[in-house]
């Protein structure tokens, strides 16, 4: 949650609900540790509590709302693409994201309708996770669209699994957010390393022809007006399909927390470093 434990919620009284007793208070001191199953504990708390309002707190939270400054210079915004994915799937799909900027866009911007419909490597942060993990999700949720959303870096780590999808008839729908960079590291280089883009520009093959080589349909989307048709085509195809989105090369994810900083010190726009 934070890069600076000492500055984390200093005035808070923390109630920690936790299955594993050894985790209670491991990182943040707690006022009360409740060890057990979250569902059962939430039910017991509900029984013990009167309904209440917190209008002042609600009003205070409303003042925290700020406009986002994510700079999508082209027509293709992550928000637009993810909204179109949700619309095209009528809200019934599972999104498996890889690791990097697109992962944070998926976490923040995808309009989840059901729990446990975003599957990602949140702890270890394993690039290359999305494409193979999506195959497993398809096996567990047959008949539901499953999207593997990757960047151009993570996709190239396990793109050999397209062959598995073809041989085993596993209809993963693959979306690549291609910005020609290892974007998350590039963003850090922009803000904390004086724009020294050391080893972050990354070449990609022609993904449409790659799809063709595996015998699956592929689309390259460069403009906003191409998004819907490509998504429709991928979903209508009875099998794996691939869409490459050529997104703004130097788009950033905001807010970002600098390394070692607390949640109250976010960088919220490009202007901060200008």
């Amino acid at each position, binding site marked *: *949650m934070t890069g600076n434990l000492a500055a984390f919620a200093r005035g808070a009284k923390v109630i920690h609900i936790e299955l594993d007793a050894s985790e209670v208070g491991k990182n943040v001191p707690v006022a009360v540790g409740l060890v057990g199953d979250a569902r059962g504990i939430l039910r017991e*708390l509900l029984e013990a509590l009167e309904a209440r309002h917190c209008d002042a707190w609600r009003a205070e939270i409303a003042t925290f709302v700020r406009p986002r400054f994510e700079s999508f210079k082209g027509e293709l915004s992550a928000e637009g693409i993810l909204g179109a994915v949700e619309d095209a799937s009528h809200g019934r799909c599972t999104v498996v994201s890889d690791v990097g900027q697109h992962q*944070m866009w998926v*976490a923040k911007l995808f309009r989840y*309708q059901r729990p446990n419909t975003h599957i990602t490597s949140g702890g270890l942060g394993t690039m290359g996770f999305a494409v193979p993990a999506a195959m497993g999700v398809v096996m*567990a949720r047959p008949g539901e669209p499953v999207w593997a959303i990757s960047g151009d870096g993570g996709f190239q780590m*396990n793109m*050999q699994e397209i062959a598995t999808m073809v041989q085993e008839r596993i209809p993963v729908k693959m979306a690549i957010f291609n910005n020609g960079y290892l974007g998350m590291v590039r963003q850090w280089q922009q803000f904390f390393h004086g724009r020294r883009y050391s080893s972050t520009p990354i070449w990609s093959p022609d993904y449409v022809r790659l799809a063709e080589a595996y015998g699956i349909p592929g689309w390259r989307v460069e403009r906003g007006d191409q998004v819907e048709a490509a998504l429709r085509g991928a979903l209508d195809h009875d099998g794996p399909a691939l869409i490459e989105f050529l997104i703004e090369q130097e788009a950033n994810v905001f807010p970002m927390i600098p390394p070692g900083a607390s949640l109250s010190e976010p960088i919220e726009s490009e202007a901060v470093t200008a």
Partner: protein
Amino acid sequence: MREQLTGSQILCRALLEEGVDVLFGYPGGAIMPFYHALPEYPELRHVLVRHEQAAAHAADGYARASGRPGVCVATSGPGATNLVTGIATAHMDNTPLVAITGQVPRAMIGRDAFQETDIIGITQPITKHNRLVEDVEELAEAVHEVFTVAREGRPGPVLLDVPKDVQNQKLEYAGGANGSARGATGRREGLIGRPTPTALVEAARLIARAERPLIMAGHGVILSDAYDELRTLAEHTACRACMARYTSTAPFNRPTSSSVSGSGSTTG
């Protein structure tokens, strides 16, 4: 008369007793007896990946989406080490993952045999439990043990290392004698702790008096299938709920839920 089965056949049967219907894997020398037996059990669908890392991630994805243990299979040495990133991924996110690896024959262990590696040692810090099967007599029990460990309490990955000669050993097998045969999610309530009554009272008191109540909901809500309870409590107590990390625990547009906090932006 009881049937004489090979270790590989017993392994397949034990997997079926655990409710397994799909395996993600890649064959190789030390796991060949298992792959020899596999076609006799068509209820076990095998998905042939192109790299063992993908087998581990696919089994992880299957487990996260279904709530049941995902199973991956690899041979010894490089097959086993290629699973490591996937096992570590499952370990960090508490996914019930069962990895089955072939191992060189028992007499060859420790002799730098072809494709030998100490996968038990390598995966010790990234598994909840791992086990080298030393004799066919213990194989079925070992399978049921690792599945039980993987899914019960705080879930996590386990690894079962099966030497090639154990896969070929024969045994009269009654079937299911030691089987947990629970199949489904099956977390045993008894193994999960319960909060003390005084702690619950104190927690309720803190929530009732809080001026700025905030819930930070994490992956545990998914593991314990507590979405409805979370939403109800947030609405009831006017707590604002926000989702930690990448947890899709609540529908996006609810007034009681807000954005993702922390995200990966703290750690990149």
